């Protein structure tokens, strides 16, 4: 029986190559969960006026919302978020949005009809959702005064506002409603 040297076997080489390629292929996205620190970002404002910086709102409870004009649940959420913004004290609570439209014109057209009173950044290349590990549209993050994520809300349907209000209120009152990491991880079957 002829035994070939393992180091020279082309089949082994091919298998090794497949293994290495499959590692590159693996699409591992790390989604930020409650307890993780929110990445401090600065992105150009959607309206073209300056930048939107997360660090500017340190000391306030921040509701960070990723949205796009082509995403129907995002558009359902926006009037509700706008309502929430006005319900909580401005000194303590801040809403920031990050728009992910590739063409900002569509987002601006939507905001013309549905004006919002909070800043929205524009990230057409989608680098910020990559940093946060957004895995559903929309996803929103409730960030505490120290910049730590305390609640992640994936998807949006009518009635979700009351749950969000509860979480915001708890955080404003100093009792973070943070759950164990992964406690509200997305279940299979998107909303």
């Amino acid at each position, binding site marked *: 029986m002829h035994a070939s040297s393992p180091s020279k076997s*082309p*089949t082994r*080489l*091919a298998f090794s*190559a*497949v293994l290495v*390629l*499959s590692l*590159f*292929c693996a*699409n591992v*996205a790390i989604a930020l969960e409650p307890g993780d620190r929110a990445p401090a970002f600065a992105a150009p404002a959607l309206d073209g006026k300056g930048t939107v910086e997360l660090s500017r709102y340190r000391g306030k409870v921040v509701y960070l919302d*990723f949205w*796009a004009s*082509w*995403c129907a649940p995002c558009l359902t959420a926006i009037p509700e978020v706008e309502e929430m913004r006005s319900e909580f004290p401005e000194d303590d609570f801040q809403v920031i949005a990050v728009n*992910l*439209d*590739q*063409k900002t014109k569509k987002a601006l057209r939507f905001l013309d009809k549905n004006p919002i009173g909070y800043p929205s950044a524009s990230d057409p290349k*989608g680098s910020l*959702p*990559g940093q946060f590990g*957004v*895995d*559903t*549209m929309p996803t929103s993050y409730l960030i505490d005064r120290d910049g730590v994520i305390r609640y992640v809300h994936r998807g949006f349907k009518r009635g979700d506002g009351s749950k969000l209000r509860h979480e915001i209120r708890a955080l404003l009152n100093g009792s973070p409603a943070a759950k164990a990491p992964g406690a509200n991880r997305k279940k299979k079957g998107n909303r």
Partner: protein
Amino acid sequence: MKRINALVLILVIGAISSGCVQVKPWERDLLARRDMGWEPDTLEAKREAHIYFSKEASMPGGSGGGGGCGCN
């Protein structure tokens, strides 16, 4: 010869693996466009499906058996 085979295998796998790219949730901008749907006009598609299964005496839609009573 074996080396060439291995190289070809690697190249083929490399070419195929480029299809592993996943569309991220925030990259569905173009895919969400109405004209990217299988049926750009949902209402029209439903109407046509209704005519089809009524004519074909089949239920439901274009697949499955049964029906034929003309009452759907």
